């Protein structure tokens, strides 16, 4: 996606005034002691890219904000002065852009050029704060319980969207099932009214056709042979006859059906409403029941993970595992009770809903009858009641809806019109009073009513079929999504597991060459087990040392990032996390980064100077792409120390006549270099348990060691008959000894004892030769080409070669076997 070219920081976090770094689009190391301002650079990069500073977010940062605490403390009242300008390269777009962001307005950035493609990539980067990894992040992946690890990794991989889609599809399929149930109930209800009219036992084509054809024969209408979706039962009747909708016998049956039903209204669904009332009362008296229901799956998983007296859900320590298990079992019992309660409420609500559908189907024909018979008030009463029942229906199918119906369920849920039996009686008498219909008219109205009810049935059936289709489609979609996502996630975790194991093996090849890991995903957790010296798979924290666990964290992070970004993993900010790799494996870590992520730019901070130097030796960074801060003050910010800039600083100090500044800088630099070279070359100064070596102890031992190594190289070249190489090394040794002699003369000038007092009368011309002497001396220890410090391999055991990072210097130290 992106690579960093350079950064300009002014008054941001620990950077006072300004700091400019040129990253050269390469991996870059920033070293320096704790509190020297390294992380301020990482903060500035993160801020420029995302508008956020991770350090000011999360646990323990309450009350902190980027706009208020992002600027340098001296600019807290003038935050306008604090800004970061980051030059970014977009390899995929073959262009570069500059992002400028002020600390006082974190959400706003100025991008130049403001091209859409540039903005799109930056928006994507802004959506991935995980490009920054600091020490505290590592533990998130390794030493958390599986459910949290799953959350962390799913968040890192942006997998939450998958869970959301699955959840939406699941809710949709549940709703479609509920709609199907209602549609089926509706079919049953209209089927009953059609059968009631036809006076047949079962709604089957044969019985229907016999009944209908009996009337059609009476009317001299052709017999209906088959019942198809297009069949009209009253086909052939004149339009005027079709308009007559009252069939006296059928109307009386409809009235009787509703009246019979009304007789039973008082006790209708008593058992169900009573149970719902009880269930609601239980919920009311014990609100923890619902909460328990929501937490059910969480507790179930917790119980599975119990492995000792520490609770895997909250880390609380119990006296014994048994007590913890009993506690979780009690919680689970509570949620089981809640689940049963929920099922009970929904089941009983559905039964009442079905009754509403049945009653509404009985009310419909009577409502029409009342209207046609001029009993408008009764017709209106029935209409209002039916609408009320329709509105009640969906409420009975959800817990929230049922909770809101508590009062109604207490006082009689049906709320039928009080005068319904009297009104039905009056309407029945009115219909009965009508003269009997002629056989012809009765047959005509029978057919017309039958057709109307068949239409209702067909309509309900069509809706049911559509609901079935919808429910089947919803279920198929949900099942398919689950299956596809599960397969994809399993593949992903297998790939991550494979990469993680490979990285860790390469890092610890000397003692864990057969390391394997297993990531086991389930619905909401992700188990990680690692092989411990081929003794089996265990959680990472079980037997591995903290250093190894940290190494695992880094490896898992790299494996995940590889999967998140693929070949677009072009930038990672590693803030002091390389300390997580123990000293014996750092070189391998650098090799791992170079081998597996050759196109990724790592911006790495470390408080360990040796680590920084090893990165150079391994060729991960060069002198041009590394910087060292030797200290920090609130007025100056980080104070830079680097091989090139140190000589520039010394020259500048001398130009200004500040000999004491130049001498201090030179001494400081020599202390750093001699310590580093002592390590790189395997020098043997007098051992100090506290590691507090003096320059006067280190430098002579480094010079002695170098002389020994060159001696070995000469012997080796001699044994292999490489006379030209031998001469070259002899020259190198001779020049080294000249420089060594010169520095012995000038040694006093950087002696600690003469600091700050002898320089008072020291002039620029007096100190310049000292600087030249030491500068020349150090040239013997570095490569002109790659500028890395030379080192001996292997680190332990008899030395075999003396080399630099780019192999321009590569002297064989092993003589030919005799």
């Amino acid at each position, binding site marked *: 996606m992106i690579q960093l070219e350079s950064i300009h920081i002014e008054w941001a976090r620990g950077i006072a005034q300004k700091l400019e770094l040129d990253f050269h689009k390469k991996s870059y190391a920033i070293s320096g002691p704790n509190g020297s301002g390294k992380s301020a650079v990482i903060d500035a990069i993160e801020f420029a890219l995302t508008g956020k500073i991770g350090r000011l977010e999360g646990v323990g940062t309450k009350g902190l904000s980027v706009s208020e605490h992002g600027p340098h403390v001296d600019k807290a009242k003038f935050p306008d002065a604090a800004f970061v300008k980051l030059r970014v390269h977009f390899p995929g777009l073959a262009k570069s852009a500059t992002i400028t962001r002020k600390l006082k307005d974190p959400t706003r950035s100025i991008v130049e050029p403001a091209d859409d493609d540039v903005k799109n990539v930056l928006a994507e980067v802004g959506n991935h704060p995980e490009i920054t990894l600091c020490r505290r992040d590592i533990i998130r992946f390794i030493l958390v319980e599986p459910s949290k690890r799953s959350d962390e990794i799913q968040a890192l991989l942006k997998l939450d969207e*998958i869970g959301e889609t699955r959840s939406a599809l699941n809710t949709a399929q549940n709703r479609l099932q509920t709609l199907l149930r209602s549609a089926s109930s509706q079919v049953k209800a209209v089927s009953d009214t059609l059968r009631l009219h036809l006076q047949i036992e079962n709604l089957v084509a044969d019985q229907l056709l016999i009944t209908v054809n009996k009337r059609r024969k009476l009317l001299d209408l052709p017999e209906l042979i088959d019942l198809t979706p297009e069949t009209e039962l009253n086909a052939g009747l004149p339009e005027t006859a079709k308009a007559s909708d009252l069939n006296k016998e059928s109307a009386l049956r409809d009235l009787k059906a509703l009246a019979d039903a009304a007789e039973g209204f008082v006790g209708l669904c008593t058992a169900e409403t009573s149970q719902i009332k009880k269930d609601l009362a239980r919920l009311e008296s014990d609100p923890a029941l619902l909460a328990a229901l929501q937490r059910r799956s969480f507790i179930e998983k917790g119980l599975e993970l119990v492995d000792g007296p520490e609770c895997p859900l909250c880390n609380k320590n119990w006296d014994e595992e048994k007590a913890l298990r009993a506690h979780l079992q009690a919680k689970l019992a509570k949620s089981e009770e809640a689940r049963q309660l929920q099922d009970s409420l929904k089941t009983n609500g559905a039964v009442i809903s079905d009754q509403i559908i049945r009653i509404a189907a009985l009310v419909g024909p009577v409502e029409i009858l009342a209207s046609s018979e001029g009993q408008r008030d009764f017709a209106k009463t029935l209409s209002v009641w039916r609408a009320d029942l329709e509105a009640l229906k969906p409420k009975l199918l959800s817990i929230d809806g049922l909770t809101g119906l508590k009062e109604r369920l207490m006082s009689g849920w049906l709320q039928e019109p009080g005068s319904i039996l009297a009104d039905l009686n009056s309407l029945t008498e009115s219909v009965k009073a009508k003269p009997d219909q002629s056989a012809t008219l009765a047959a005509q109205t029978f057919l017309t009513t039958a057709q109307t009810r068949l239409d209702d049935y067909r309509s309900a059936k069509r809706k049911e079929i559509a609901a079935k289709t919808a429910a089947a489609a919803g279920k198929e979609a949900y099942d398919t999504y689950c299956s596809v996502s599960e397969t994809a996630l399993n593949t992903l975790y297998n790939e991550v597991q494979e990469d993680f194991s490979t990285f860790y093996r390469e890092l610890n090849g000397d003692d864990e060459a057969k390391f394997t890991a297993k990531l086991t995903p389930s619905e909401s957790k992700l188990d990680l087990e690692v092989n411990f010296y081929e003794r089996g798979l265990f959680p990472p924290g079980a037997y591995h040392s903290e250093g190894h666990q940290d190494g695992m964290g880094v490896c898992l992070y790299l494996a995940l990032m590889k999967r998140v970004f693929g070949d677009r993993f072009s930038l990672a900010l590693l803030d002091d996390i390389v300390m997580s790799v123990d000293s014996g494996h750092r070189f391998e870590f650098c090799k791992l980064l170079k081998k597996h992520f050759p196109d990724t730019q790592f911006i790495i901070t470390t408080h360990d100077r040796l680590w920084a130097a090893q990165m150079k030796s391994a060729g991960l960074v060069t002198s041009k792409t590394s910087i060292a801060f030797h200290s920090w003050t609130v007025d100056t910010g980080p104070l830079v120390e680097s091989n090139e800039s140190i000589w520039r600083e010394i020259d500048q100090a001398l130009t200004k006549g500040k000999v004491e500044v130049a001498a201090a800088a030179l001494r400081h630099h020599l202390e750093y270099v001699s310590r580093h070279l002592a390590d790189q070359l395997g020098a043997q100064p007098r051992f100090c348990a506290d590691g507090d070596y003096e320059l006067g102890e280190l430098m002579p031992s480094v010079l002695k060691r170098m002389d020994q190594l060159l001696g070995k190289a000469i012997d080796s070249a001699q044994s292999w008959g490489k006379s030209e190489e031998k001469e070259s090394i002899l020259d190198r040794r001779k020049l080294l000894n000249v420089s060594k002699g010169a520095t012995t003369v000038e040694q006093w000038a950087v002696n600690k004892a003469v600091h700050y007092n002898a320089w008072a009368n020291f002039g620029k011309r007096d100190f310049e030769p000292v600087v030249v002497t030491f500068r020349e001396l150090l040239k013997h220890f570095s490569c002109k080409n790659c500028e890395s410090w030379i080192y001996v391999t292997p680190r332990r055991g008899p030395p075999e070669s003396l080399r630099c990072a780019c192999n321009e210097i590569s002297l064989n130290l092993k003589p030919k076997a005799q």
Partner: protein
Amino acid sequence: MTKLQDEIARRFLEKLNGSSAVAPEMIEKLRVQMSEKKRLKPENLVKVFSMPTGLDVK
């Protein structure tokens, strides 16, 4: 790089294409909704699956 969720969506729609339970017009509607990069809403999905299918009573 294709995001995993995009890849899952692609395979999901592809697999649904071979299913007799989900009509092609439903799949097309799903494709549109999933490509909108917004959170899917159950009510919208219910609408997608409840599309008239042209089926009738036999």
